[in-house]
């Protein structure tokens, strides 16, 4: 049989596969693969689509998918390029200008936008001051919309005229919401929105004036990526590209963590799937030893025998992967339709990638874990037909499992694109497995001595474990891995949600009050304390610009596109404080209560800004404040929690250094939604005070959190299902031996009860040791993950000590259930075997 063409081998393999399938031989492997592929496909789709959906929401903070900003107009080819790619485009020019009316003048932040603006999110406005807001397109040419505080400051009403530079515009509506300003709490001047067509007529924008030009883009992600790639080399030093992730710090943080979590969960599912496939593939191979020996006797070469079984496996893998991908796709469709109300209206379909990744997961896991035992099939000696005890020579198991682990690592990395997370999970898992596997082996060995005096069911049950301590340790590790993965996912879910909830307590401040004059400070504070239970303290604010660092102009020092560049582009809110504000942590230097040896006043700088500006302790900073120069020396660096919705500051001065300058006050507070009327009254009583609502941003963050929570629960469910599948696959792999044993014991006169007790003893102990492994491993990996991947504080989790009990119950229950065939088998089987 030296010339067996591939087509004959293929047809032989497929016929053989069909026969095996009919005989029910492939069920376990098929289902392990099916679940593996379905779980990773569904999770892949779910996280991709949800992520896209969440990003879509986050794009509202930019009013676009992608934003190109610069201090000079964009080059014509930068615009034509995007249009050629089929992207939607809107143009926006931002500048500060004095707005004049008969009553006086007021500095305003002006946005001149074309009719396409905004591309994401919605503009909201009201027909009159404090009227109900409506959603709709922006102002027509000749018109302008202004924020209520501009109306109040200039004593205007809708319909009045104002002048912006040389152009007179009719103030048609009250501007209540700009999507791309929702996250900006610190804009000190009121906004005015006008049509881009009127911009030239104002004559305000001249060469050299401080203007921000924005090109907004919207389109499918492929075109956007293409645009990003084509435009990046053409960016001028004063130009910058931003997408949703850069756009807003709070949303970016929440998204980042959610993404990592979903990644982690799908990696856990992949890991479990790998174990399930490994267990059932080993059984697949073991059951084919006889067939392989026979085929070798019939003249098939070693290569041909190996080819035949590899082809069978490949055919099985492809079929199961296709079915699994379809199943996973359907599962996520069902889930999205069930959760319609909670999710954003538009969710991108997710493309083909998650399905392909899911299938690749199944196939690589199959290859990684099934090929080694399959390779053994090729080495079955033909003599086995005569002597059944002859087993193939094993390959070095280090080589085999090393290859399998490498394959798994590659999939995990490709899926998550996160090397750190993959290594933490895989490395942590491996180290834990090796360490604990060794300990387990020692434990089992010492159990042997104790067991001599134990009763029969225990000896029968545990004898099974002790007979093959290596196999028992392996099984315990496999079950331990399942419990570990499930416990870890559950642990992180709780912890992440708590962290997020802490960030957004129910009564997080939803309003900011700016421009409180010193004369009104007391009155405002009193009035506010009647409305809101715990307002933040009133912080003094002096607008100032950082101009020099150690005598060098700051613009020469700061790199483009850095946070520092953004910070020095505009006035910073400078403040002073005697005490370190809450949620601020000193990371270098000292606070004021210690003696300041420098002649200059001290300033405490926010650490990220300091890093971006390359500031260190003792550096001398020069600020331009109200036309005067003020110098200070960097006295300390602070970490600031930007997620807390409290007034936060980049620069805090030593008390007594800025008091002589014109100062206003700033605070934040919580107001229940039904207090709308009181808010209007507050605004009327203190017309100079600017009240900003951040409810929209909070609501958006809360809805993202709700979605993430839901996603996490869904993913947990999948991990659980995958884990149980592995458990049963593991039991199936030892079923043949158990059936034989069960039949023999029955023939010798054992009652069912004895067999059940023996099983319980065996699986209970196996489960308990798995649980113990899981508890230790879970603590170890959670420590690594918290430290390096999620940036959370780690604390021990005493409830993990319950895992051995949970393991004993889970594995014990599943063990008895999964091997009930061995309990019910007819004792006659022993005669048939002979």
């Amino acid at each position: 049989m030296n010339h067996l063409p591939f087509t004959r081998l293929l047809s032989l393999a497929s016929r053989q596969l069909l026969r095996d399938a009919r005989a029910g031989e492939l069920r376990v492997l098929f289902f392990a693969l099916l679940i593996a592929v379905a779980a990773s496909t569904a999770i892949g789709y779910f996280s991709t689509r949800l992520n896209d959906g969440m990003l879509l929401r986050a794009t509202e903070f930019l009013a676009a998918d992608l934003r190109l900003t610069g201090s000079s107009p964009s080059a014509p080819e930068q615009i034509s390029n995007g249009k050629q790619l089929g992207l939607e485009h809107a143009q926006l020019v931002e500048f500060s200008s004095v707005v004049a009316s008969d009553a006086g003048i007021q500095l305003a932040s002006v946005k001149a936008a074309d009719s396409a603006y905004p591309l994401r999110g919605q503009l909201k406005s009201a027909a009159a001051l404090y009227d109900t807001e409506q959603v709709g397109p922006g102002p027509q040419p000749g018109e302008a919309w202004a924020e209520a505080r501009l109306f109040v400051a200039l004593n205007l009403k809708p319909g009045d005229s104002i002048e912006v530079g040389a152009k007179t515009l009719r103030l048609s509506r009250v501007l209540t919401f700009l999507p791309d300003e929702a996250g900006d709490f610190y804009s000190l001047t009121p906004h005015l929105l006008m049509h881009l067509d009127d911009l030239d007529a104002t004559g305000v924008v001249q060469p050299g004036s401080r203007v921000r030009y924005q090109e907004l883009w919207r389109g499918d992600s492929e075109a956007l990526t293409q645009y990003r790639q084509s435009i990046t080399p053409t960016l001028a030093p004063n130009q910058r590209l931003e997408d949703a992730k850069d756009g807003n710090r709070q949303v970016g943080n929440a998204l980042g963590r959610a993404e990592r979590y979903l990644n982690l969960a799908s990696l856990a599912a992949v890991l479990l799937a790998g174990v399930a496939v490994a267990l059932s593939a080993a059984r697949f191979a073991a059951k084919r030893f006889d067939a392989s020996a026979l085929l070798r006797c019939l003249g098939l070469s070693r290569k041909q025998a190996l080819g035949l079984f590899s082809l069978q496996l490949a055919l099985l893998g492809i079929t199961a992967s296709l079915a699994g991908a379809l199943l996973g796709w359907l599962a996520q469709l069902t889930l999205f339709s069930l959760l319609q109300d909670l999710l954003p209206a538009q969710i991108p379909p997710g493309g083909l990638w998650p399905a392909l990744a899911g299938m690749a997961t199944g196939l690589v896991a199959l290859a990684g874990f099934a090929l080694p035992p399959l390779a053994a099939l090729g080495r079955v000696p033909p003599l086995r037909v005569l002597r059944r005890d002859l087993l193939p020579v094993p390959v070095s198991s280090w080589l085999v499992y090393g290859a399998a682990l490498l394959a798994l690592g590659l999939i995990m990395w490709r899926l998550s694109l996160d090397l750190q997370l993959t290594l933490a999970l895989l490395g942590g898992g491996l180290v834990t497995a090796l360490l604990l596997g060794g300990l387990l082996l020692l434990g089992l060995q010492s159990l042997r001595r104790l067991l001599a005096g134990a009763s029969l069911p225990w000896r029968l049950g545990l004898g099974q474990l002790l007979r093959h301590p290596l196999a028992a340790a392996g099984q315990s590790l496999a079950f331990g891995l399942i419990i570990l993965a499930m416990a870890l996912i559950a642990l992180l879910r709780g912890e992440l949600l708590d962290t997020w909830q802490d960030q957004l307590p129910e009564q997080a401040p939803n309003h900011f009050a700016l421009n409180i004059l010193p004369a009104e400070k007391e009155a405002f504070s009193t009035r506010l304390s009647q409305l809101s239970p715990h307002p933040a303290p009133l912080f003094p604010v002096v607008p100032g610009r950082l101009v020099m660092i150690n005598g060098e102009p700051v613009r020469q020092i700061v790199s483009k596109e850095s946070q520092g560049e953004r910070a020095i582009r505009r006035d910073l809110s400078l403040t002073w404080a005697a005490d370190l504000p809450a949620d601020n942590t000193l990371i270098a230097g000292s606070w004021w209560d210690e003696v300041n040896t420098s002649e200059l006043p001290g300033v405490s700088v926010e650490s990220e800004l300091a890093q971006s500006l390359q500031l260190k302790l003792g550096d001398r900073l020069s600020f331009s404040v109200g036309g005067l120069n003020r110098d200070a020396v960097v006295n300390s660096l602070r970490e600031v929690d930007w997620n807390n919705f409290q007034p936060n500051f980049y620069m805090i001065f030593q008390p007594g250094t800025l008091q002589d300058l014109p100062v206003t006050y700033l605070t934040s507070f919580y107001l229940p939604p039904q207090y709308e009327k009181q808010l209007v009254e507050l605004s009327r009583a203190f017309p100079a005070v600017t009240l900003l609502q951040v409810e929209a941003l909070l609501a958006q963050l809360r809805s993202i959190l709700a979605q993430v929570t839901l996603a996490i629960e869904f993913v947990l469910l999948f991990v659980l299902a995958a884990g149980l599948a592995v458990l049963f696959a593991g039991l199936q792999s030892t079923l043949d031996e158990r059936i034989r044993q069960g039949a023999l014991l029955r023939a010798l006169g054992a009652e069912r009860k004895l067999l059940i007790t023996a099983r319980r003893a065996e699986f209970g102990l196996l489960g308990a040791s798995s649980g113990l492994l899981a508890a230790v491993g879970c603590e170890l990996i959670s420590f690594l993950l918290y430290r390096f991947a999620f940036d959370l504080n780690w604390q021990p989790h005493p409830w993990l000590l319950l895992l051995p009990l949970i393991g004993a119950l889970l594995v014990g229950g599943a063990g008895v259930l999964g091997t009930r065939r061995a309990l019910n088998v007819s004792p006659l089987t022993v005669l048939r075997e002979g």
Partner: protein
Amino acid sequence: MSSSILTARNLSKVVTSTEGELTILHDLSLELISGDSLAIVGRSGSGKSTLLGLLAGLDLPSSGSVVLAGNDLARLDEDQRARVRAEHVGFVFQSFQLLDSLNALENVMLPLELEGHADARQRARTLLERVGLGQRLTHYPRQLSGGEQQRVAIARAFAAEPAVLFADEPTGNLDNHTGERISDLLFGLNKEQGATLVLVTHDERLAHRCQRLIRLEGGHLVDHVEP
């Protein structure tokens, strides 16, 4: 007069397959008294093992009855039949059927423990010494040769001093010389304990060591020899 230990009356076994019903045992009756030895011979597929399974209560007949040590097996459920086996029956199988997870001593102790004997360990040790394996007590089946495994199986079969010993091709997997030694052991122990022996075999020489011999063909009893 010796009492009957095993009685089979009008035993038939019919199985249903995709090609319809197939009768593998036709209306067979026999009776054995204590200390009897019976060989069941016949070609492959003649129904030998089926008959053995029915006599030992491993399976139930389609019609007819088996009374083993005074128990009508058809009236008992599987657990009750298991108890009867534990008390009165021993087995020797062609493929030895030792539990891989137990060592030689533990394998022999098994039936004694099932019956609740307090001195299981000591009795098992004595029996293993009797079959010449006193030095291999803690060896696992994998560490023993085929002949040694079968000797463990024989020790296990006689451990609980069964009233009836069923042996299914006990020398089938062994070479001539070893087979000879195993059959000597089997008949020797049987004689010592005065058990009833029911032996299924292809080996005519082994069959003729029994007091009685029945030959099956296509499920029918064709020959009944009482030397």
